[in-house]
Structure formats: structure tokens, C-alpha cells
């Protein structure tokens, strides 16, 4: 990609001033790490509060063409549009609730994973807040617009800043800007008026820690972020630690752990398909997914803990009893685990927890145990 094609976020200049090591990621010039380095940034997030620029992602609003309504009826109409593409019960979202779901293809493969949220206030029903992955957002938005067929309008919000505050002190930091954040349950969101501007605050994240993702107007974002970073417990965290944090949390990275060939059942994401949708079987790829739900999938995403110190990376073959039984899809060193960890797919027969396998690292077999994920317990605020 040529330098001219790389996009910046509202915070790119600030990252440079902070001494970040920058690299193109999903078409954006992004901070990979700051002076602290991946290890310290990772541990700081688990211990205090990390601030991440995730403005490369794809926040958007889907609104009924007839206009914003009130009450359940308007919500049900907009929910019916996206339910053609995703297997989650979007209609059943309570006001303010967020659900993790995925766009599926006709074979039940995952086109992208995303968050979908219902506005918390009754004056904004018939709208959904959607956050897609950076690398998939163009295609996702096109797919959603096609499904709208004129009945709804998709407004991108990816010209704003999306800032994640993650870690045990995140709520203590954000409460200085937004009242009432400590009381918000995990996977809820709300609008907030801050210094005369509208923010969107969601209690969710990609680290396994308590935390928030906050959508802030681009113009004021650098000042806000600078001010947040002046808090003694907040440090900027790059994409390097974002990846090691999500790996320890057992969370999937699109294009690696999930893609158009993997189904939600294989990926261990069947919990995202609520009862109403299973019973109706009215989502793309339902035939495969319902079959896998009743008979079990042929392969399954599992966690690996290596018994010595050599990390196994994406692409490493998984061997059991001399036969290849799967492949690593993400792997590296877990700073909080203080050892190498990985995730990947193995055939159902060997997927039972605590089976011993070998991961091939540079043609050398490395013993690993199949373990339950997450590698580090989630510490979400369940309220």
C-alpha cells in the first residue's frame, strides 16, 4: 500500500508526539507500541487502565428510513433488517443493550464479527449502533445497505474517534467525564453530553478487563485523550498489546481465528445465537449451523498452553498420535500468563480439555496442553 493511501485517525498526530512506533494496519497509520513496549503496556492494562485508539474500526448507525420512532415497534422494524444477516436475537435487545454477533454467509461462514446495540432512550428507537472490524467495514457496510433495500439508512461514524479505556481503573477515569459510568452493566451503552458534545459510551472491550469504548467527535478527541492520559493511572497502549490482551482473554481475531470458512459453532461462539433464532432457523447458513449444534462440529476452536518457553504462532500444525489434527490460528507470548499460549482448531475427537498434543514450531514438536479459555479470567463488570 502506498503511503498516500494510508489513512490517519483523529489521534494519529498525538500518537507520534507520544513517541509511538507506527505501522499501517487495515489501511490506517496506527500505533503498534509506545516507549513502554508491548510487555509493560499489556501488564499496565491488566493492573490499571490502558487507553487505545480504535478509531480504525467501523462504527455506524442504522436508522429506519421512515425516521426515528419510539417504543418496541420501531426497534423491531430495524432489528428485522439486520437479523437477515446475523444469527443473534437483535429484536430481543433491551434498551441500551449491546450484543456480540457476526455476519454470516450462506454456508454459515463468518464474514465479520461485530457489536450491535439498541439505543437506551425511548426517543431514538428504530436505530442500531453497529461497530464492525476495520479490515471488513467497507464490505460489511455494503452488505448491510443491500439488506436495507431502502427501508433503512446506514450512516458511518468512522470519521470520529473511538477510544477504548480498558482495565480495573477504567471506570474511575471515565467518570471524570461521564456521570454514572460506574453503574453501567457490561455490554450496555448510552449517549452522554460532554462539554456540549454528544459521546457514545459502551461498556465493553477486547481485553477481558472491565472497560469502555467511547465514540468522541474528532475535533475534541485529541484534547480529551491528552487529558485522560494525564491521569496517573492511564497510559497509551498500542495494537501489539491489544493483540496479546485479547489472546489471553480467548477472544477471536477476525481473519485469523474466524473467517468465511469457520462457523460460529466451530469457533465456540454458539452462545451468540439466542434461542429464538435457533428455533426460527432464519439466518444465513442455518442448515449447517443447526446441524452442528445438534450433532457437534467436526472441528472446534481450543486453547493451547505450551509446556516449554517456545511460542507457537499462527499456522503451526497441531499433531496428536503422529497425525495432523489441526492448526494454530493465533499464538504468542502471554505476558500475564508469563508463558506461550495459542488458540486454533482441532478435530472434535481431540478437542476434549486437557488432551496433550504437539505444536510444530520450525519443524520441531513442542508439547502443549489443550485448555479451557480464557487463559486469564475475564473481569467484566456484571453489575
Amino acid at each position: 500500500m502506498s503511503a498516500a493511501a494510508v489513512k490517519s485517525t483523529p489521534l494519529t498526530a498525538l500518537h507520534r508526539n507520544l513517541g509511538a512506533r507506527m505501522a499501517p494496519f487495515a489501511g490506517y497509520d496506527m500505533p503498534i507500541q509506545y516507549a513502554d513496549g508491548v510487555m509493560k503496556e499489556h501488564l499496565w492494562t491488566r493492573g490499571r487502565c490502558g487507553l487505545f485508539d480504535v478509531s480504525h474500526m467501523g462504527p455506524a448507525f442504522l436508522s429506519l428510513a421512515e425516521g426515528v420512532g419510539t417504543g418496541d415497534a420501531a426497534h423491531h422494524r430495524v432489528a428485522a433488517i439486520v437479523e437477515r444477516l446475523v444469527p443473534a436475537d437483535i429484536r430481543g435487545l433491551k434498551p441500551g443493550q449491546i450484543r456480540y454477533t457476526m455476519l454470516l454467509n450462506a454456508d454459515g461462514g463468518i464474514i465479520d464479527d461485530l457489536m450491535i446495540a439498541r439505543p437506551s432512550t425511548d426517543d431514538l428507537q428504530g436505530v442500531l449502533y453497529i461497530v464492525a472490524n476495520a479490515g471488513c467495514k467497507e464490505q460489511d457496510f455494503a452488505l448491510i445497505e443491500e439488506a436495507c433495500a431502502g427501508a433503512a439508512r446506514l450512516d458511518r461514524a468512522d470519521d470520529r474517534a473511538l477510544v477504548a479505556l480498558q482495565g480495573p481503573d477504567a471506570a474511575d477515569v471515565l467518570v471524570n467525564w461521564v456521570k454514572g459510568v460506574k453503574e453501567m452493566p457490561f455490554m450496555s451503552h448510552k449517549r452522554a453530553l460532554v462539554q456540549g458534545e454528544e459521546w457514545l459510551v459502551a461498556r465493553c472491550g477486547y481485553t477481558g478487563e472491565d472497560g469502555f469504548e467511547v465514540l468522541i467527535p474528532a475535533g475534541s478527541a485529541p484534547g480529551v485523550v491528552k487529558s485522560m492520559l494525564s491521569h496517573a493511572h492511564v497510559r497509551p497502549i498500542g495494537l501489539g498489546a491489544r493483540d496479546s490482551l485479547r489472546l489471553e482473554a480467548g477472544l477471536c481475531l477476525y481473519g485469523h481465528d474466524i473467517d468465511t470458512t469457520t462457523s460460529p459453532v466451530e469457533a465456540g461462539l454458539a452462545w451468540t445465537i439466542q434461542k429464538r433464532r435457533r428455533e426460527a432457523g432464519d439466518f444465513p447458513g442455518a442448515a449447517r449451523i443447526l446441524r452442528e449444534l445438534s450433532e457437534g462440529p467436526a472441528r472446534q476452536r481450543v486453547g493451547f498452553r505450551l509446556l516449554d518457553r517456545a511460542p507457537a504462532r499462527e499456522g503451526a500444525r497441531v499433531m496428536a498420535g503422529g497425525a495432523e489434527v489441526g492448526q494454530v490460528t493465533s499464538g504468542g507470548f502471554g505476558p500475564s500468563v508469563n508463558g506461550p499460549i495459542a488458540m486454533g482448531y482441532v478435530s472434535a475427537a481431540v478437542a476434549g480439555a486437557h488432551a496433550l498434543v504437539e505444536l510444530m514450531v520450525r519443524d520441531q514438536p513442542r508439547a502443549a496442553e489443550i485448555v479451557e479459555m480464557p487463559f486469564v479470567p475475564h473481569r467484566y463488570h456484571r453489575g
Partner: protein
Amino acid sequence: MRRFTKEHEWVDVEGDVATVGITAYAAEQLGDIVYVDLPKVGSAVTQMGPMAVVESVKAASDVYAPLTGEIVAANESLSSAPEKVNETPEGEAWFAKIKLKAVGELDALMDADAYNAFLKTL
């Protein structure tokens, strides 16, 4: 006199044995090193062929043999303390010693001034 490669290895030669490590620049670029895959004593290496692997939190990177020869020692202390590579890359944290086959190969490597000038071009 210490010599350097464009792949950021350093080498000190005494007689026909070379001590090899990675430069401070390389260690800094790699970030936190969590594992070093050392060569086996007795194995043969060729100039600018793979010799070892360093793993940071994020990625694995090859370390190349600056000179052709046979591995006569590996710094096993890096197995239990890979972070030494970040702390003293151009000292205690050497990777391996190579018994050289052709000392003349040294001429192809850079001296400190040339390496520092090379770093400025990166």
C-alpha cells in the same frame, strides 16, 4: 575489532572463533524478547544463513550467521533468561560461538562506523 551485518548481528573474532550476537538496534526494534531458539553445538552454519530465532511477544525473527563455520558454543543462559538480550545485547547476551571456516569472509562485514552510517539510512 567488532564487525556488523546488515541484518543487525555483531561478531567478535579471536583467532578462528567468532562470538555472535544481535545489535542494540535489533534488540530495541524487536521489543521484549521472550524466547531464543539457539543453534545446536556441532551444527554447521553458512554466512548469512539462518542460525537462531528470537521471539518477541508479537513475532519470531531469524538471526543469521555472519560467517561460515561450525557452532562450538551456544549461550544457554538465554534459554532461561531471554530478557538478557534486551538488557545487554552487545555484551553478556551473545548467542553462539562459531569456529570459522574462512576468516576472509570477515572482509564482507561492516565496521562500527559503517554500521552506524547504515543505521542512519534506515
